[in-house]
């Protein structure tokens, strides 16, 4: 077993399902009808090869035909434009961050460890070493400032609701608003990516983590930003260009699906308390200065900007105001996904509610 695996073994989270193995060739999707789960080492979705994946992706202006990470080879057939957006996002996150590469890789590693995601652990370690660090440094606590940062990252992953104003204020003093926003966006991206990877159950590429993709895509002109007075697409029911998805008929045992949330934690906070928190959040001071609207207008890509609407969303002002490139890449992928997936609005937002409730987030 190689040295890379030896270094990683001791950080394995108990119960973690992953094993370092060769990336699987094209696999059958999980067999919904079988009683046995598929092999513990196999991805849970079909993985196509690079050539096949590239037939699905949009035309590339750079990097056409290059090797793709295994997660892209899972997503490309059903979410091609989204996958392309994610490849670009991943590069911006890993290579074009305003954070120094060692800090960025360390943050990503801490988050991957908190999530128990071996794929991301290996990739972050590789990025760290490539940036000039030594792998063993990742497990060392470092000075007080570094410890604060590491603990913040860890808790943002496992209990974000519990992070205090004082902690963030200290980080703001340590790093400034631009870097703090970049840190938060790396952590947020890790929370997105590790959940995606965990659910795909992908294993590391056979020769180790890949470099960030160099692929750049010839995007068609994005849907025109909705004028302020018009109904935004998400309020109009299902997307006009909803792609065909083959939804199976309910399985024979559909009625056996539990009707109630089993864990006691779900009702641990009464709805009245949740509503009170929402009301309180309206008058709360943000932990970071919110850039004025004119900054947003300058920083936000024109194709994303909606006059009279974009400025009203404070989330936009913070993210675009301090980290326009990271934020633009995130939203570009999101827009591709929204158009490609055509998820039903009501259920989509209900799922969002469940996520916010599960995370005890006010949003």
């Amino acid at each position, binding site marked *: 077993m190689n040295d890379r695996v030896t270094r990683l073994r001791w950080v394995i989270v108990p119960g973690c*399902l992953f094993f370092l193995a060769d990336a699987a060739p094209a696999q059958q999707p999980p067999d919904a009808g079988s009683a046995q789960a598929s092999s513990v080492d196999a991805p849970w979705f079909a993985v196509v090869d690079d050539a096949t994946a590239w037939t699905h992706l949009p035309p590339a202006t750079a990097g056409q035909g290059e090797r793709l990470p295994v997660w892209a080879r899972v*997503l490309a057939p059903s*979410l091609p434009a989204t996958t392309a957006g994610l490849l670009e996002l991943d590069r911006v996150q890993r290579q074009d961050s305003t954070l120094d590469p060692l800090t960025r890789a360390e943050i990503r590693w801490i988050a991957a460890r908190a999530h128990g995601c071996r794929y991301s652990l290996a990739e972050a370690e590789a990025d760290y070493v490539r940036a000039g660090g030594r792998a063993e440094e990742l497990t060392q606590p470092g000075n007080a400032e570094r410890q604060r940062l590491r603990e913040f990252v860890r808790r943002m992953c496992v209990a974000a609701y519990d*992070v205090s104003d004082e902690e963030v204020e200290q980080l703001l003093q340590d790093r400034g608003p631009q870097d703090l926003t970049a840190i938060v966006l790396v952590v947020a991206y890790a929370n*997105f990516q590790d959940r995606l990877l*965990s659910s795909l159950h992908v294993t590391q590429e056979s020769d180790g983590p890949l470099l960030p993709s160099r692929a750049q895509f010839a995007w068609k002109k994005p849907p025109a930003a909705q004028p302020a007075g018009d109904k935004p697409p998400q309020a109009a029911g299902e997307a006009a260009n909803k792609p065909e998805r083959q939804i199976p008929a309910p399985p024979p045992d559909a009625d056996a699906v539990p009707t109630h949330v089993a864990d006691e934690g779900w009702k641990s906070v009464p709805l009245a308390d949740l509503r009170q928190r929402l009301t309180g959040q*309206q008058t709360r001071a943000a932990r970071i200065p*919110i850039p004025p609207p004119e900054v947003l207008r300058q920083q936000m890509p024109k194709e994303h900007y909606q006059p009279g609407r974009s400025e009203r969303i404070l989330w936009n002002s913070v993210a675009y105001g301090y980290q326009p490139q990271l934020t633009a890449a995130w939203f570009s992928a999101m827009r591709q996904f929204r158009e490609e997936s055509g*998820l039903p609005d009501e259920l*989509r937002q209900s799922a969002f509610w469940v996520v916010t409730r599960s995370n005890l987030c006010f949003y």
Partner: protein
Amino acid sequence: MLLAVAGLDRLQVSRRVETLASGDWSAFAPRERVLLMFARKLSQAPASIAAEDVQQMVRHWGEQRTLDWIYHISWCNFMTRVADAFQIPLESENVFLPPEKPAAAEPRDPDAKTGG
């Protein structure tokens, strides 16, 4: 806010939230319950997602739609982290709806008398 953007009126939003918060999801179709429970589990403990969880999703939604939902739930966890980190104040109006159009001016009646 986003439930309103999905087309629910104020009363419907309130009822939907009450239903979700109650934990009694019997009003949802079986595949919807599978989704919502998967969303909870993936949000709380991503490493605990097992093959059986994904298989259940695929049985009810098919493979492509399951991938869509996985992406969406993961996306939601991005958004909540940014909101939690910065504790961005909630806007008092629903900012995801378009702003109200200014009331159109009454057309002038050319026959109206202007004074006594």
